[in-house]
């Protein structure tokens, strides 16, 4: 059975390590914050100027002056810090963030990512995504394996305008965990009950299958 978005977030949380500074994109990545293993020290950066993002506030503690990059009200934690946008992207561009998790519309087998524009249809802008993908030491993409009309989002080449070249390291979808290798998408894990053949069918780019593929455990 394919993972739901909480399942994807739970699986991504397994990629976290103690002491990591992590930037979470909007959408599924945001959910990862809920599944940080107990006792693990992970600090979340929000690129609008907050390091040490805490959970949503209780109703009486909502502060319009304290939001995350998704414009949601949040809180600080003991040890948090606040800073301006240039300092925030100095952290990102200067490779001080250990892990970036973001959504995508397409990923190519070379690790290119497209997630900011559909020509003639949708122009929201790239926000901080281009800076993040150009500089992050480690980038994991969280997304559905296929689009709503069943088209694969894991392609030989991106068809949409690129956000960044050869930057994605790993992809975690509703169907599978894949790693970008020089040969293409290497299948690491499959969702419980999802067959390798189903993943092959949903993957337009080169898929590398070596040996038995274990099931994701979340």
């Amino acid at each position, binding site marked *: 059975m394919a993972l739901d978005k909480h399942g994807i977030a739970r699986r991504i949380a397994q990629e976290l390590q103690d002491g990591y500074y992590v930037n979470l994109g909007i959408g599924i990545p945001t959910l990862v914050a809920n599944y940080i293993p107990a006792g693990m020290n992970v600090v979340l950066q929000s690129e609008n100027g907050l390091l040490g993002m805490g959970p949503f506030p209780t*109703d009486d503690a909502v502060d319009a002056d304290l939001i995350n990059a998704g*414009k*949601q009200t949040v809180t600080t934690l003991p040890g948090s810090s606040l800073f301006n*946008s240039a300092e925030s992207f100095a952290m990102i561009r200067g490779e001080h963030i250990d892990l970036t998790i973001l959504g995508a519309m397409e990923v190519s087998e070379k690790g290119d990512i497209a997630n900011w524009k559909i020509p003639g249809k949708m122009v929201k802008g790239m*926000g901080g995504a281009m*800076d993040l993908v*150009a500089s992050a030491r480690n980038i994991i993409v969280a997304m559905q394996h296929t689009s709503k009309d069943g088209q694969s989002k894991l392609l030989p080449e991106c068809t949409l305008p690129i956000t960044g070249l050869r930057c994605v390291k790993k992809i975690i979808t509703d169907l599978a965990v894949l790693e970008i290798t020089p040969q293409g998408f290497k299948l690491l894990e499959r969702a419980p009950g999802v067959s390798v053949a189903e993943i092959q069918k949903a993957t337009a780019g080169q898929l590398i299958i070596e040996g038995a593929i274990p099931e994701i455990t979340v």
Partner: protein
Amino acid sequence: MINKVVPSAQAALHDIFDGATLMLGGFGLCGIPENAIAELIRLEVKNLTCISNNAGVDDFGLGLLLQKRQVKKMIASYVGENAEFERQLLSGELEVDLIPQGTLAERIRAGGAGIPAFFTSAGYGTEVGEGKEAREFNGKMYLLESWLKADFALVKAWKGDTAGNLVYKGTARNFNPLMATAGKITIAEVEELLPAGALDPNQIHTPGIFVQRIFQGQHYEKRIEQRTVSSA
């Protein structure tokens, strides 16, 4: 110390002209100069070039200026919360320059800091890099990006003093301190205006040298885009 206080938004913005380039602080609706935006609407200045990370929402923030067709060109990184914006853009009524957020922040800082150009990796290999000089440093490709400056920078702070020193609160800081450095004339509105000496010199976010005019803002709405809460 030099006194930068003016009595009102009206006095502060009196010389903003049609066709001016403005920077407006804020991220989403957080930390936007609400009083200055209201005054721009009252002044009915036209053909503005607005540099701001976002474009507000349909009925608040910069969205109000878009509604009144006062904006000729928008320079931003993300405009996803504004349907009127997207309509004007797709119809060609509005010129738009979309810039990676970190590049936007750094270009504004560079404008204030006298750095005409710098290299950044953001956008290399994408539409953003088209027509720009690219260069390799230590095996990685970078784009040359130029500074941004404005005729007026409109910023909003939490506290300010008569000497123009500013302190921001929470994530309402965002682009405000950068833009304060890059305006030919920087106009700051504050929630609380204090006498010089009331703020700790060690804890100033924007030194007064960058601020030409400061005024006490009124009636902050501080609208929240996504009120997300957790149970206690």
